[in-house]
């Protein structure tokens, strides 16, 4: 490509800003998922969100006919998914929260965590494909969603994403100590009278919210990549919880910035480039751990 950098940045400004927001916020939530040993949730829940988005397309004709969607016709809503974004985010949220509550319910009944989450991932993936067959948008749209057409993000999507992720960031900033505490030592928190259920619910809410809006806007690949990989890369360098959270977020933002550069310079798909760069961030930590041994 020989388009000047400034023009590319201007052209894709909303997409890049959206990716930066995700790079800042998703690793913070991913850090808690990792510490709670539920990193697989970071892979499975975006798949639930994807299934929700695709189900939204299945239900769209019925929804517009019986409930209505701000005066949109079925044709407009189908041809321009931006116009019906809030509708799709809502379906992504319904499926994400449903998946999260289901996994939490099963976790309380059984300790077979990995198998349970893997089964949920398989079911959500199958549901996504089946819904795509039932929807009028078809499998090609789902392919596009799965690969994450980040560069197509417009102003409205960015505003929605930035608004909701700001809420998540504020909640995390205000309550991160309590969220860490109820994860680290739930029993002690109960003994001290900390509102454990309230903080566990808050963590579920902000995780579900970030995954729903992130998946709808940027696609599942970038969301689960940023939830899982930067916190893993940051762990090797962290000697305190404070430094761990800061580094996780910093690694997320760095992955987005370098991923954008790699994508533009090498003409690579943006989501995959960001996640690949995040993967490279693991290497220095692995070397450090080897040296420590």
């Amino acid at each position, binding site marked *: 490509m020989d388009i000047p950098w400034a023009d590319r940045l201007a052209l894709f400004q909303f997409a890049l800003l959206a990716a930066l927001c995700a790079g800042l916020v998703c690793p913070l939530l991913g850090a808690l998922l990792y*510490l709670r040993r539920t990193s697989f949730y970071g892979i499975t829940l975006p798949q639930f969100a994807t299934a929700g988005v695709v189900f939204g397309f299945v239900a769209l004709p019925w929804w517009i006919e019986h409930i209505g969607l701000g005066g949109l016709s079925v044709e407009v809503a189908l041809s321009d998914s931006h116009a019906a974004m809030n509708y799709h985010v809502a379906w992504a949220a319904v499926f994400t929260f449903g998946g999260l509550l289901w996994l939490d319910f099963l976790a309380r009944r059984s300790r077979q965590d990995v198998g349970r989450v893997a089964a949920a991932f398989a079911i959500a993936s199958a549901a996504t494909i089946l819904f795509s067959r039932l929807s009028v948008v078809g499998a090609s749209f789902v392919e596009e969603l799965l690969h994450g057409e980040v560069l197509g993000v417009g102003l409205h999507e960015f505003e929605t994403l930035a608004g909701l992720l700001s809420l998540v960031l504020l909640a995390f900033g205000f309550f991160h100590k309590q969220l860490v*505490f109820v994860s680290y030592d739930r029993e*002690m928190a109960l*003994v*001290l009278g*900390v509102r454990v259920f309230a903080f566990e619910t808050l963590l579920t809410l902000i995780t579900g919210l970030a995954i729903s809006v992130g998946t709808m806007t940027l696609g599942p690949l970038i969301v689960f990549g940023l939830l899982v990989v930067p916190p893993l890369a940051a762990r090797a360098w962290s000697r305190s919880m404070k430094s*761990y959270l800061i580094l996780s977020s910093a690694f997320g933002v760095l992955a987005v910035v370098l991923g954008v550069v790699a994508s533009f310079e090498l003409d690579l798909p943006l989501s995959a480039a960001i996640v690949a760069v995040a993967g490279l961030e693991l290497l220095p930590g692995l070397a450090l751990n080897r040296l420590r041994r």
Partner: protein
Amino acid sequence: MTTLLQLSGVSFGYGGKPIVAGVDLSVDAGDFIGIVGPNGAGKTTLFRGILGLLPVLSGHMRRLTEAVGYVPQRENLDAIYPVTVEEVVEMGAYSRLKSLGGIARADRELASACIERVGLTDMRRAPFSSLSGGQRQRVLVARGLMASPKLLLLDEPTSGVDRTAQARIIELLIDLNQREGMAILLVSHQLAMVRETVRKVLWVSEGHVLHGDANELLRPENLDRLYATGEPKSTAKA
């Protein structure tokens, strides 16, 4: 004597089914009590019930002080968390967080004092996971002290640590009990340590609780009978 905790005919259990029943216990300021008994006898159930983690199924429990510190088993804490000694101890003040700010200056100072009290000031910025078992246990005692407790409850405080570390922990607990008049209630399966350290003992066996003087109830000749029948040769009421 100020009574801090009183249990009258209390039963604790899971799913409405009592595991320990008919417990009578009074903990006064300055008491040093050990909860002992065979594995699976209900020690942990009794301890969790006293902590308020299990509902009282029958009888009455009255906690007459809010100043209760708790020291869990260190094995329950996952080493994957990159927390420092200071961060772990400050968690003892998290019930007082006002959400919008960090930890209060007074609580920071209290955390420093508690860390100093357990002799780990030099290691306050060290990762918790890098410490030895004994040092970790002292950190958890420091966290328990963040409640400025009149009653300190400890779950297997000397389990899995070497003799030197065990001696330091016991020395610390005796000091807290004797110098500061703190009532201490600990669960342990280390009978020799309990006999040498505490004054009163609760022997939990098959859901029932016996009270007694530590030296009397945990005499070797009594222990054989306790394990065999759940009854001592002679029982003193606490």
